[in-house]
Structure formats: structure tokens, C-alpha cells
């Protein structure tokens, strides 16, 4: 399979990451990017290894925040930068209004996935563009629907 679901997900952001498919290991539907040193140790049944990329479940791929951060570093990737208040609301699981988008990079059309970055350029998660994302002038219209955000780390602990 396997690594293909990882690459399919990456392609949704209109970017190519230089990842060697042979460096991706699958364990119970979870994908890990493993360097040469760890590869020597990965012959046993491990629980977690290297950089976690995400998991495939019921035909869907759920990316890790490590993978999203890798994508956010690519200049060509789809991403929106949001203001401070909206950044916090996004982490709390909320969607993004057009007026809170400060900048748009890559494709900004409806239906595509986009990374959501704060004012420092740090990746907070990703969402699907559902409205205009051209910034400031758009008012209270919903622009990006939250799909996954780093607040998940807290929700997982519950």
C-alpha cells in the first residue's frame, strides 16, 4: 500500500516532498518515516518509530502534525495565514472566517485542502476551503472548515 496513501495526501496540497518511499514503514495502518539508523532497529515489532506521518483508516488518511509541518515548510503548498484570535479558535476546533485570513499561498479555490498557519508561520493544522479566502474584505463568511488541528493533542488525552 501503502505509502501511496501518504503521497496521495501530500499531493492534495499541490506540493512534492522529497521522501524516499522505501523510508516509509507501515505498522497497523500507521506510517512512519524512518532514517537509516533507525531502520537497522526497525526489524522488530515496534510501537512507534522515527517521524510519524499519519494513519490510514477506512480508506481515509489522517495526517500527523509532523507531516503537516513538513508540508507547511514548502513554499508552493496551499496555506492560509490567519490572525491571532482566529489561530486560537482554530486550535479549539473552530472553522475560519474569511475576514481572519491575513494571507493566502498556493491554491485558494473552494474544495481544496489548505494548511492553516498562525502569524509566526507555524502550522496549526489543516482544513478544506469552503468559501472565499481572499482576506480582510470577506466579512463573516465561512472560508475554511477545520479538518484537523493541534488541539487534538489535548483531546486525545481525555
Amino acid at each position: 500500500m501503502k505509502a501511496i496513501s501518504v503521497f496521495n495526501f501530500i499531493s492534495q496540497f499541490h506540493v512534492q516532498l522529497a521522501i524516499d518511499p522505501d523510508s516509509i514503514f507501515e505498522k497497523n495502518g500507521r506510517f512512519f518515516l524512518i532514517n537509516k539508523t533507525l531502520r537497522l532497529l526497525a526489524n522488530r515489532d515496534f510501537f512507534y518509530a522515527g517521524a510519524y506521518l499519519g494513519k490510514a483508516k477506512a480508506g481515509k488518511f489522517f495526517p500527523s502534525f509532523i507531516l503537516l509541518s513538513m508540508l507547511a515548510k514548502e513554499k508552493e503548498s496551499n496555506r492560509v495565514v490567519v490572525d491571532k484570535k482566529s489561530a486560537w479558535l482554530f486550535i479549539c476546533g473552530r472553522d475560519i472566517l474569511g475576514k481572519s485570513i491575513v494571507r493566502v499561498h498556493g491554491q485558494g479555490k473552494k474544495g481544496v485542502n489548505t494548511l492553516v498557519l498562525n502569524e509566526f508561520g507555524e502550522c496549526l493544522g489543516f482544513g478544506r476551503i469552503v468559501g472565499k479566502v481572499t482576506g480582510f474584505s470577506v466579512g463573516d463568511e465561512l472560508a475554511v472548515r477545520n479538518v484537523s488541528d493541534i488541539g487534538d493533542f489535548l483531546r486525545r488525552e481525555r
Partner: protein
Amino acid sequence: MSGKEFFITRYQKLGWKYHEVKLKQAIRINHTNVSDKKLIERLKGMGVDVEKIPFLQSGYWVQPSKVSVGATAEYLLGMYSIQEAAAQIPVSLFTNLKGKLVLDASAAPGGKTVQMADTMQNTGAIVALDVDKRRLTALSNHLERCNISNTIVYLLDARQATNLNVKFDRILLDAPCSGNFASDGYWFRNRTLKDIERNSALQKQILAKAVECLSENGELIYSTCSLEPEENELNIDWAVENLQLSIEEINCYGERGLTDVFGRQLDPMVARCKRLWPGATQGFFVCKLKRSNMQ
């Protein structure tokens, strides 16, 4: 043999007068992800003041505020970990971790694993073990949050570490222990001397196996957050005698290890261990071990 009075009397016999302790919350900055200056500014901007912990490189005490440092964007982005001050000491005692092959024998929930990975700047490799699957999930989340990429995690009892057939340059054995009253409000009510003796036996078993995995000139850091000498000085005295280990001098916060435990005289080298009675930190014990034939 249990109860508050019983343990307080023991501590007194060991030279420490019991007093109540209120621990300060501490964080450790992950330098791979952010600089001290940048993080402190950002925390200050949201009303969180921090104070440098004088005996730690990356540790800060958090001043009381309305903001929970466990629920900020900076925390979720892996810029810092919440880690008690004493718990930050063991990893800081390794020499030259970068690029090394490291065993974290009892890793979950991963505070020290992440600290090592951060010190190593994601170079080399860390093998992290734990026996509790739920705790491994917490460890995995911690690794993902802090963007760690040099660690492999196994669901494995540390007593089976030799099955990995690997010799490690550095081993952290933050042994499962009885804990201490400063970090557990119910400690005196829940602990008996029997628990402590059981833990001590387990610690010796793990230590013996860990030593088998240590490379010829490797370093092993042993630590517990227990105040009980059975889990600390007595175990290390046993290790010196039975596992051919020597205790290295370490320069860190804390008092010298006890060499007279309830009238029993231990190897004078045990004084090189550090014992932290509760106060500025929780109760803690730490030492650095090497194979004695390398001296």
C-alpha cells in the same frame, strides 16, 4: 510498616527533617523547536512569567497565572514540555549525547525521552521501552507533538532489553519507583515498606539487564523519584558490588548520597550519587554509572 509517622521517622534517621512542600510548576524548553528568548517573549505576551531554574540549562519555573501552560499553542507546537525540575537533571548528566545510540529503559510518558532527543538534535537513535501500552500512547503523542524523529519505541519490559541484541552508548534508567510525598498527596496513605522492597527488587533486576546492554565505555544514568534508600543508595551499593560498576562524580543540584543507611555502611563511592530532599524540587535520586573495568 507504613504511615506518615513511620516514614517521617525514617527520613529523620537519614538526616532530613520532614516539612510540607508545595512544588512549583516547571517547563523545559525544546531548543530544537524554539529559542529561550522567543518562547519567553511569547509566554510573557499571554501573561505567563517564567523564572530560570538556576541549576538547569533549559528549565524554567512557571509563575502562577490564569493561563494553563499545558494548553497553549506554544505547548501544542512542542516548544516546551512540562517537566518537574528534578526530573530534568538525569539527562543533563550524560556527556556528549549527540549522534549516540541511547536506551531509555523505562520511557513513558516520555519527558526525558524528548529531552534526550532535543539534546541530540534528532541525531543518533533512541530506543525507548515501556511495558504499559496506554503509557506508550502518551509517549508517542509526546514525540509527535515535539517533532521528534530519532526515536523508536517498543512495548517491552526493560528486563528483556538484552533481547534487542544492541549495545548502547548511553542508557537512561529512570526506574519505576515508589514516588514521593511531594508529588503525590496520598503517598503516605498508599505506601508501605513492602511496596518499597518490591520496587527495589524490580529495580535491581532492570539495572542488571541494562548493564548487559551497556557498551564498554558507555554511561548509565540511574534515577528514581523515590526518597527511600532501598530504591536508591542500597541498590547502587549492590550494583557496585555485583555488577562491576563504578560511580562517577556528577556536578548537579542535590546533596551527596548517603553512605550510612540506618547504621549500614555502604561503599564510599555511593557518596558520588545525588539525593534531592523535597524543597525546591520533588524528592529525587540520581547517579552516573560506568563499567568499573574501564577505570
